[in-house]
C-alpha cells in the first residue's frame, strides 16, 4: 500500500506542475490577446500532430534535453550544483566535430563512435575543471560552471572562425560532417536519428547504475547526507563528488556530440538554444530520477517542438514556452516548500547545508541537538 501511495504522490506533483504551467501559459496567451484555443491547437499539432511530427520534432528535441537532464540529475544526486551542462554539451559538440573532420569517412560507424567518445571525454574534461576548482580551491561550482559556459561559447566561436571553419571561410560554422560519419536515421522519412536510442539507453544504464551498483549507492548517499556517508559508511565523499561531477559533464558532452552528428551535422555557436538550462527543469520534473527523466525530456521536447509550431501557425512568440518551463521549476520549488511544511519530503534531498553553514548553525543551536 505504502509504495503505491508513494508512486501516486510522486506522479501527482509533476502532473500538477505541468498543469499549472499550462494554465499560466494560457493565461498569458489570453492576456496578450492571442486565441488560447488556436495557440494550444498549434502547440498540440507541433508536438503530437502526426507520427512524423513526433519523430522529427518532439523526439529530436527531447534527445539533447534527455542527455543534459541526466547530466544535471546525476550531479544533483551527488550534491553537486552543476549548472554547466550548457558548456559541457558544447564542448562535446566541438570535440565530436573535430574528430569527424579529422578522420577518414571510411571509418563509418566506428568513426561515429569515436566522435561520440571524444564528445563525452571533452564534456568530462570541461566539468573536470570545475570539479578541480571545487575540490582543490573551494571555488563554488555554481560560479565556475557559469564562467565555463561562457568561455566554451567563445571558444566555439573561435573554432568555427578558425581551425574548424568551413572551407570557403565565409560562414562562422564548420563544414558538414560526412554522410558516412553521421548517426544513422532510424525512422525512414523523418529526422529521428540513432541518438535517441542512445539517450534512452543512457537513462536506463544510469538508472541501473544508481539503483544497483555500489558506486551508484555511494554517490546517492554522498548527496543525501555527506556527513553520515563519511561517518557511518566510511565513504570518501570528496572523491565520489568529484567523480560524479566529471561523469555529469561526460553525459552532457555525449549529448552535444549526438546533436552535431545526428541533427545539425555542423558546429556553430548557437548550436544549443539553452538545452543546458532547460535540462535543470527536465531533471527537477523527473525528481532527479533517470527513468522519469525520459518522460520529462519528452514533455519538454514536446513543449519546444510545439512552441515552434505555435510561432509558425498562430504567430505566438516562442518565448512563451520559456515562461512555461520557468513556471514548472517555480511550481516545483514552491511545492517542495509546501511539502516540507506538510511532512518533510523534498525534491532535492541534497543532504545538509554546506559545512560553513553547519558550523554557523552549531554556533546558535548549541545543545538543542
Amino acid at each position: 500500500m505504502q509504495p503505491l501511495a508513494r508512486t501516486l504522490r510522486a506522479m501527482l506533483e509533476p502532473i500538477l506542475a505541468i498543469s499549472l504551467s499550462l494554465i499560466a501559459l494560457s493565461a498569458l496567451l489570453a492576456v496578450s490577446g492571442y486565441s488560447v484555443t488556436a495557440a494550444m491547437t498549434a502547440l498540440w499539432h507541433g508536438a503530437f500532430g502526426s507520427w512524423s511530427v513526433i519523430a522529427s520534432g518532439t523526439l529530436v528535441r527531447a534527445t539533447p534535453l534527455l542527455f543534459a537532464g541526466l547530466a544535471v540529475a546525476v550531479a544533483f544526486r551527488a550534491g553537486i550544483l552543476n549548472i554547466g551542462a550548457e558548456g559541457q554539451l558544447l564542448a562535446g559538440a566541438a570535440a565530436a566535430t573535430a574528430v569527424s573532420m579529422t578522420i577518414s569517412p571510411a571509418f563509418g560507424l566506428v568513426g561515429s563512435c569515436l566522435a561520440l567518445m571524444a564528445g563525452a571525454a571533452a564534456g568530462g574534461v570541461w566539468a573536470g575543471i570545475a570539479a578541480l576548482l571545487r575540490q582543490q580551491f573551494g571555488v563554488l561550482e555554481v560560479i565556475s560552471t557559469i564562467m565555463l559556459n561562457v568561455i566554451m561559447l567563445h571558444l566555439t566561436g573561435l573554432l568555427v572562425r578558425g581551425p574548424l571553419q568551413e572551407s570557403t571561410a565565409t560562414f562562422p560554422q564548420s563544414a558538414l560532417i560526412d554522410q558516412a560519419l553521421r548517426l544513422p536515421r532510424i525512422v525512414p522519412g523523418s529526422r529521428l536519428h540513432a541518438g535517441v536510442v542512445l539517450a534512452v539507453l543512457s537513462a536506463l544504464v544510469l538508472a541501473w547504475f544508481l539503483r544497483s551498483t555500489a558506486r551508484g549507492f555511494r554517490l546517492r548517499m554522498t548527496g543525501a547526507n555527506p556527513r553520515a556517508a563519511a561517518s557511518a559508511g566510511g565513504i570518501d565523499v570528496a572523491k565520489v563528488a568529484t567523480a560524479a561531477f566529471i561523469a555529469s559533464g561526460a553525459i552532457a558532452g555525449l549529448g552535444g556530440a549526438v546533436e552535431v552528428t545526428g541533427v545539425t551535422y555542423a558546429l556553430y555557436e548557437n548550436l544549443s538554444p539553452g538545452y543546458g538550462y532547460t535540462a535543470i527543469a527536465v531533471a527537477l520534473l523527473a525528481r532527479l530520477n533517470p527513468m522519469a527523466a525520459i518522460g520529462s525530456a519528452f514533455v519538454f521536447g514536446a513543449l519546444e517542438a510545439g512552441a515552434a509550431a505555435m510561432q509558425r501557425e498562430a504567430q505566438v512568440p516562442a518565448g512563451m514556452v520559456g515562461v512555461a518551463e520557468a513556471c514548472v521549476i517555480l511550481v516545483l520549488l514552491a511545492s517542495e516548500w509546501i511539502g516540507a511544511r506538510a511532512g518533510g519530503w523534498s525534491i532535492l534531498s541534497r543532504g545538509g547545508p554546506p559545512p560553513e553553514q553547519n558550523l554557523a548553525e552549531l554556533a546558535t543551536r548549541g545543545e538543542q541537538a
Partner: protein
Amino acid sequence: MTTAAPRLALNAISRHFGTVRALDGAHLTAQRGEVHAILGENGAGKSTLMKIAYGLDQPNAGTIEIDGKRTVLRTPRDAMALGIGMVQQHFALVDALTVAENVALGGFDRFDLKATADTIRRLGTESGLGLDPMARVSTLPVGAQQRLEIIKALARNAQILILDEPTAVLSPTEAKDLLDWTRRFADAGGTVLLIAHKLREILSIADHVTVLRRGKTVLTSSAGAVTEQLLADAMLGAAPTATRMHNDTSPRVARGTPTLTLINVAAQDEYGVARIADATLSVNSGEIVGIAAIEGAGQRELLRVLAGRLVQTNGLVKLPGSVGFVPEDRHRDAIVLDATLTENLALRGAAKRRGSMPWKILDGITHALLQTRDVRAVDARVQMRTLSGGNQQKFVVGRELADSPAALVVENPTRGLDIRATADVHAALRAARDAGTAVVVYSSDLDEVLLLSDRVLVVAAGVVRDVGSDRDAIGLAMLGASR
C-alpha cells in the same frame, strides 16, 4: 536583600523539541548585584533556558518577568533592549569582521566605528578585558573572542549578563580573571547568570545557585548554604539502588583480550583545539567500559578516536578491522533520512563494497534486523524518515552490530528515547558484550554509565583516569572538584 521584585524571573518554563522535553516547568529567580550559578548535567536544559532568557528560543509554556514586569522576548533584539546580554557557549561572532564591527553589529545609533573603538577601549580599561578594536576576529585566540563577546554585551549596556560555560575554553589564569570580573560586575549592580560545571569554581564566586535536572529546577539556594557534595547529588540525582555498577553485584571473572588500545594518544576537535592531551587505555573483548565526563571534557574526540572516525595527532592507536559506532547526533552522522531502511543498512561498509548491490539479500538482512531488534516499521523499503526516534536508534544500534564487530563505541545512546526503547538499547549493548564485543559507552547521564558499565573511566580536561567504581568519587572527578 531588598523587597523589590527580582531583576529576572523565569517562571514554569517548558520547552519541547518534538518528543524531547528540554525544559519541564523550570524556574529561576535572579537579583540585582548577584552572581547566579546554574548547574546541571549535559542535556539538563541549562542552555535552552538561557536561550529563552535571551530571546533566541521561545518557550512552549511559562512566563518571563523583568523587574516584576511580564515581558515576551521574541528576538535577541528584544532582550538587548531590556538590558540582557549573552555570551554563548559557541561564540556568535563573525570571523571575517573586525572586533569593532562585531560590537557595532545590530546597533541602532549612528554608525561610527571610531566611537565604537573608543567604547571598546574604555570598556577594556574599566573591566580589564582589553582588546584591539581593529583586529580581525579570525586572528583572535579563544580567550580574546570570549572577551569580545562580553564587551559586545557591555557596549549595549547589558545589566543582566548570561555566560554559558565561559571558563570551559579558558586557561586557569584566564578563567580566574574572568570570574573575578563577574564578581566586580555584580558588585557594581549587575546580574550575572553563569552556567558552569566546576563546583569549586562556582562556590568560590556565586551568591546563589540553581540546579536543573532533566528540565526541572531541583535545587535553588544561596551558595553559602550548600556543599560540593550536595550540589553533585542534586545534579546527578540521588543514586537509586538499581544504578550500581554492574561488577558490584556480579563481578565478571572472564577477562577478554585487549581489543581497543590507546597509548599516549592526543587528539584535536574540528576547530583544531587540543581536546585529548594524553590518553592511555585498553578495552577488552567482552566488557563494557563506561566513559564519564562533563561536556567538552574531550570525551567526544576520545570516542571518535576509539571508533576510528578521528585520526589522532599523537600516540599509538590499535583498533580491530571492524568497529561499530553509534554517534549521538544520528540524523546528521548515522542515518540518511530520505533513504530506505535497507539503504541505511547498506551504508555500513559501503566504502568497501564492489560490483552490484544485492538488494534482495540486503532486504532480507534488514527484515531480520527489524525483527530481532524490535524496530517498528512497515517494511524494509520505507524511508528512514517515517520511523520514530526510538526505532531509528534501535535500527542504528542493530546495524552497527549486524556484522558482529570486534568493538562498538556508543555515544549518548538513549538521549530522547522513551523508557521502553531505552531498555531495548541497553539490552542490545549487554547482549553484544556477552557475545564478546568490546563496548565503550558514553552517556551524559552518569547513572546510565554506571548502570551499563563493567568499568568506568573518567575524562576530565582531556585526561583519562580510572578512579574506581564509587559513584561519588566518579562524580567529583568528572566535575574537577577537590576530593
